[in-house]
């Protein structure tokens, strides 16, 4: 449907750096007053995994700039998710079944380093004692939730060292994604495309609601919600389709990428812009055409919920020529998009049009 979008390559300021490790997750460190320049990466597929803090200081006069590694910590498995809870703390989940809370701390000399604050060890495991990969992590303020291949959901808070509650066998298949819908409601998706809504206050170990992504048992690969209208969920799946979804109504699939979608991120400050990347190495910027944004603030006219019109109302820009390797992760802050690619490189696209 959007094949023509692939050819509209915008001329952006693109920096690539080879870093000798494959990045699975990449996240800007949000800052309180200034623009983000630190970011963290979590690796996958290496002999030894690590989480690295990078600094990428923009310099208008000098084009030849590279991010440099400020600090790193070894990690106990593939980094399956990284999320900043606030400008200082971030949470991570690992394929070895553990989750961690880490902090970007500063020494007296001003140098930044990573501090491991809390480890929730082996919170995902199989009946036979093997550890199970923790596949995803979500947070709402200080509440955290992790899901894993063992079909277990764990709830805990950032302040506590213990898991507050876990639902064993929440799903008979591996759970792939999780997001918070409200402070007391989460949405999980499993290998077969079943989506379950759980009430975190409920005593019962049964989901409040179960839905299917589509009839074809397609595995969702990433879930995200609209920043200002949280009942609107966007799911990316292994076949490359974006499915928009008003939880109160029904689903609206949009065929998009060639390969499986690896991540979807709304622009944190501007929900009219969405970014997605895929295993075929595409990095796309979806933006609402300007004339539709004026005066259409009401949710009924959210462009994502008008499938037949999405194409005419959205512009899709390719941010990077494809490199033939998957793009595993992306993040966006102000006008800067960073992504981690399967060719052991990270790329910064500067000056995206908002």
């Amino acid at each position: 449907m959007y094949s023509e979008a692939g050819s509209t390559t915008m001329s952006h300021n693109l920096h690539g750096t080879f870093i000798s490790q494959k990045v699975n997750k990449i996240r800007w460190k949000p800052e309180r007053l200034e623009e983000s320049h630190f970011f963290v990466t979590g690796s996958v597929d290496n002999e030894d995994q690590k989480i690295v803090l990078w600094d990428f200081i923009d310099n208008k006069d000098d084009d030849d700039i590279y991010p440099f590694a400020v600090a790193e910590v070894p990690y106990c498995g593939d980094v399956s998710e990284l999320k900043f809870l606030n400008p200082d703390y971030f949470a991570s989940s690992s394929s070895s079944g553990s989750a961690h809370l880490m902090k970007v701390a500063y020494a007296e000399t001003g140098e930044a380093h990573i501090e491991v604050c809390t480890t929730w060890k082996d919170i995902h495991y199989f009946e036979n004692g093997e550890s199970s990969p923790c596949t995803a992590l979500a947070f709402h303020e200080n509440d955290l939730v992790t899901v894993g291949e063992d079909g277990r959901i764990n709830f805990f808070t950032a302040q506590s060292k213990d898991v507050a509650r876990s639902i064993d066998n929440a799903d008979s298949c591996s759970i792939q994604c999780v997001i918070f819908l409200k402070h007391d409601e989460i949405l999980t998706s499993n290998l077969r495309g079943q989506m379950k809504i759980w009430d975190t206050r409920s005593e019962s170990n049964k989901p409040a609601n179960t839905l299917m992504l589509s009839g074809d048992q397609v595995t969702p690969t990433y879930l995200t919600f609209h920043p200002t209208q949280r009942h609107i969920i966007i799911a990316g799946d292994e076949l490359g389709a974006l499915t928009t979804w008003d939880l109160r109504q029904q689903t609206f699939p949009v065929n998009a990428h060639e390969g499986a979608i690896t991540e979807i991120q709304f622009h944190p400050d501007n929900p009219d812009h969405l970014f997605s990347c895929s295993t075929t190495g595409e990095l796309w910027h979806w933006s609402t055409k300007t004339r539709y944004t004026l005066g259409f603030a009401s949710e009924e006219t959210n462009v994502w919920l008008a499938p037949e019109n999405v194409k005419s109302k959205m512009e899709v820009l390719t941010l990077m020529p494809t490199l033939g390797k998957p793009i595993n992760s992306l993040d966006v802050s102000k006008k800067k998009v960073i992504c981690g690619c399967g060719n052991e490189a990270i790329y910064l696209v500067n000056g995206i049009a908002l």
Partner: protein
Amino acid sequence: MENNAKTFLIPNDLCRRAGMGASWRPMNEIVVFPYEKRSVKQKDQPTSFASNAPVSIFHIRRSVILFHPILRKLVNESNGVFLTLQASFKTKPSDLKMEILSISRQYRSIIRACLENLQDEVGKPNITVAERSEMHNYITIFYSVECVWHLCEILFIDVIPGNIVLPHLLDWVRFHFPKHERNAAILLASNSEGLELEEEFWPTVFGNLLQGRIKVVRALLKQHSAANSPIFQLVQHLLKSMPTYNVMNNVSVSEFNLQWRHWVMDIQQQIDSKQFINNHNLNLLMRLLTGEEEAWAEIQSQCEAWYEFLAGWLCYSETTVKTFELGQYAKQSIKKMRMQNHLRHLDRVLLAAMEFDMLLVIKEVQEMTENGWFVSHFTDLLHHSGRLSSLEKEVEGFSADKLRESFILDYGTTLVGHKSLWQVGLSYLDHCPKDGLPTIQLLLPRISFDSEAKVHKLIREAISRGLKNVAQSICKVQGMRSLSRGRLGNALTWALKSQDGPFTSYLADKYLKQYISSGELNNTDLLDNLGSSMLASDRLIFLGKYNEFHKLYQEGEYKECGHLLIALMVSKIVPKFFWPVLLSEAIPLLESEEIVFSANDTFTVLHCLEEKEEIPELSDKISILRLAAARNLSRALMYEAQCENLV
């Protein structure tokens, strides 16, 4: 054939006493273990070495320098260039000349960046001695690679106007012997007169002369304390008037040669009139310019390598040398330097290149110990430039396609063996038209995985190459793994993805047997939503339908329930071990207050009962079933008769 077998000692006593066995372990490992050889005639019993003591098993792995973090940058970056070349070859195979040259330069700039990174690393204070020597080793290797590639680019890839190779050759030498330029810069920067007091002065003057940097030579001579003397002025004048050849100048080669001879004659006259006799160095300089044999013999000791000498010598005696004449001059300079008998590997490759023996170059390049990075990218480039296929006519039985493919196949396979570079490796195998796909087919299932995220990646790679059976077998492995972890639902999902009927049936049986033993159907969230995937096997259809039956029963939809049960009984897909359960399920329905089964339905139940009465587990239920069926039959018959009467 050369015997270059290597011997590795396995430090193990049991291996020494019993003997050893070995087997391949994917991807690039050999596993060695103690093993006693037995013949068919010997008795089948534990060997005398068998014991309960722990036994060592050894993994032997080839060390691949390309997996070093710094070199991985080179691997990944060059992969991008490689793919660009393959893509542009596909789209516009006719107009590749300039593209090929630019690709070649990109490869070289990647090597240079890599050398820079290695130099930086060596300079770091916190590395061990072993690491430092390792870095030095890499630097030597990639320095040679760049050196050979650069020369080959000049000779085989670049299009040189008029075949006048000298300017390029000088560029090449200048890059690889940067010492003189650097020294000159240091000397000139000091900006003091009387530079000749510096020890480095004259070697630097001659070094730059040999690299054809006349301007630098003149600048240096100007800083000599006697620079204003008539003799130095004369030298400056002669150097300034040296004719230079440039194809663009519209000067023919013969015309240039005439100018050159005049200029040399001029200098010769000055030498003969003993103008420079008081200054040995100036005298030597002038004699070098005239190409005098003895003078060149005198200077050769200052040259680090024969090719440094060669470039300088050609610069002042054969300025218009053509590419195809290089070989003979190369041999002459090697002879002059008396190096014929101690040529290093690098020397041999360079000589082969100058002699235009492309196959020998490729053969020698293979010996460079960088795991095939050079030879595969270089051969691929030559192949696309068309240089390699032109050899097919000259050499019998030589196929350019096959040669290129064999190198790329090897290189790709090496990379697939790495935990992180496997996808890069696959992209090389994709460009082996003959054996690439079969190789991928063999390698993909052997890549290890410990998370479903990796499983998904592998499956995607398989599907995108049309290797459905590989994808299915990976699904099956993950299915078995889930089963052993007690995740039956997940196992079933993977079994369905693998489209393996028998495996699905096996798992469906597990559910049914669990139900028999525990009275509960597990994973109903999955079973409720099987949808069309139920059709994968008869047993799964049965399981799905049976689950539906349960659901209807719980919801109190007894009529629907009864229909479904009868449909299942006549369907012929009921597993033998499940008949007792299925028939017992009929009892409450037969006994229900409301009539569920019609007379015909009841006959069906009775019929099945007759057929299955041999099943031992059913023996205690038969009488109850018969009674219930008889009672229901009577009720149903009466009810149906009433209905008929009403009509």
